[in-house]
């Protein structure tokens, strides 16, 4: 569906992307993770044809991304970090404009507004919405034409947990319709929850790629069980058969207050690989 081969992007002397290669399959949610300034937005701009790479090739649906044209854009939904909404127009009119462009029935507008939880604010000018609501309106516009591919740049950035949950549900519903979703985020919990594959981008290079759980398992070097007992003691046991006896004793005596395994999350993997966090 989407294939990047040795993509390089330079702005003057500064090399923002350094030979990025990726493959995203149809119907999957792919997450591009990285800290601010890692090159995520640059990469999404290249994949959506807004930017021509300095070197390398990007294919979207078998076509070179640099040659994407109108009819192909009609099969995509794009939500960039700058939402591109008409501030004086109401939520409804913002979507109505694109319903006219896409040739979508106007009845669809209320349906999409309801999906993103903005039906009650349909008459409110987009410029008077909160950041989270504007994000949801931009997402509503992106999904209105039932795209085959959705490109989302930080879709839940700055949203409250309730709005984030609503967006996640919407994205999962889109995936069920076999929509391919390419999202960038620096929220590792979001990536773990939604994405079938993630790539960790640091300083223009993919430092790790795979399924989130698989990546975490791969970097589970400690492989320990951390146990806190009611008497205040804290134990670390190797996570193998040797721990069975000790665990059984504490369980039988009802002494265990908490027990955790030490598998890392994506953030700790990223820190291990780069020496810095996903901020």
């Amino acid at each position, binding site marked *: 569906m989407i294939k990047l081969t040795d993509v390089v992007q330079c702005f003057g002397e500064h090399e923002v992307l350094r030979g990025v290669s990726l493959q995203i399959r149809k119907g999957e949610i792919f997450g591009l993770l990285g800290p601010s300034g890692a090159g995520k937005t640059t990469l999404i701009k290249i994949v959506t044809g807004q930017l021509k790479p300095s070197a390398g090739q990007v294919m979207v649906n078998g076509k070179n991304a640099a040659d994407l044209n*109108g*009819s192909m*854009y009609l099969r995509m939904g794009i939500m960039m970090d700058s*939402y591109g909404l008409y501030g004086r127009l109401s939520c409804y009119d913002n979507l109505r404009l694109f319903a006219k*462009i896409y040739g979508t029935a106007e009845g669809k507008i209320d349906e999409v507004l309801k999906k993103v939880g903005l039906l009650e604010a349909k008459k409110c000018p987009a410029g008077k919405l909160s950041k989270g609501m504007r994000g949801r309106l931009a997402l509503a516009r992106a999904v209105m034409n039932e795209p085959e591919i959705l490109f989302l740049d930080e879709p839940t950035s700055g949203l409250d947990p309730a709005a984030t949950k609503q967006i996640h549900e919407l994205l999962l519903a889109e995936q069920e319709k076999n929509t391919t979703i390419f999202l960038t985020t620096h929220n590792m919990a979001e990536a773990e929850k939604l994405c079938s594959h993630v790539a960790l981008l640091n300083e223009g290079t993919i430092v790790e790629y795979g399924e989130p759980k698989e990546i975490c398992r791969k970097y589970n070097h400690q492989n320990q069980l951390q146990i806190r007992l009611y008497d205040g003691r804290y134990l670390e046991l190797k996570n193998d058969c040797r721990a069975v006896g000790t665990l059984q004793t504490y369980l039988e005596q009802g002494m265990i207050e908490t027990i955790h395994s030490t598998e890392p999350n994506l953030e700790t993997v990223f820190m291990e690989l780069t020496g810095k966090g996903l901020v």
Partner: protein
Amino acid sequence: MRNIKAVFWKQIRDTLKNKTILIQFVMFPFMAFVMEQAVVMEEMPDHFFVNLFSSMYVGMAPLIVMSAILAEEKEDCTLKVLLMSDVKPIEYLTGTGGYVWSACMLGSCVLGLVGGYQGREFAAFLGIMAGGIAASLFVGAAIGTWSKNQMMATSIGVPVMMLFSFLPMLSMFNETVHKIAGIFYSEQVRILIDQMGQHGMEMKSFVVIFLNMAAALCCFVLAYRKCGLS
């Protein structure tokens, strides 16, 4: 055609809520109406204020409105979103330009009615205004395309607008200004409107308006090639 209609519709909805743009369309027709009613002086030419304000309207409204719309859309990234939704640059420009031209022609109708023009004179008045508005639109489109944001569009647009809209008025009081102003379309619009009720209109004025239009179109093409629309 669908996209042009959509952009045209969007612009109507947006203008109704955008006082800055709305005022550009109604200011001169309203002022002409008030001044024609309020000021009566001996030896003042017929339709003095309508004729003067019409040329100022041509030099100001389409230029400022077109550049402001383009620059705002670029700054807010709405134009980029439109272009990535299968709206081609020519469709966007036709929709927006068509809207600004139509709105200005509506204002011109009001000016013509305030001036008491009827029949062939009214048609000739509208014809002259149509040419002047088109030339001004191209200048506005060139400025809007060249500008990265609204502040830049205002910085470039206001001096250019003052040149085109105030020279016709100043040229009535100063011979040197009159000679210089003659190379600009807004002055030729004023001359043509003045000539309407008297004797035949000069071909030279039409040629100057056409050349201005061609020069503005060239400026727009250059700006488009250099900056694009997104």
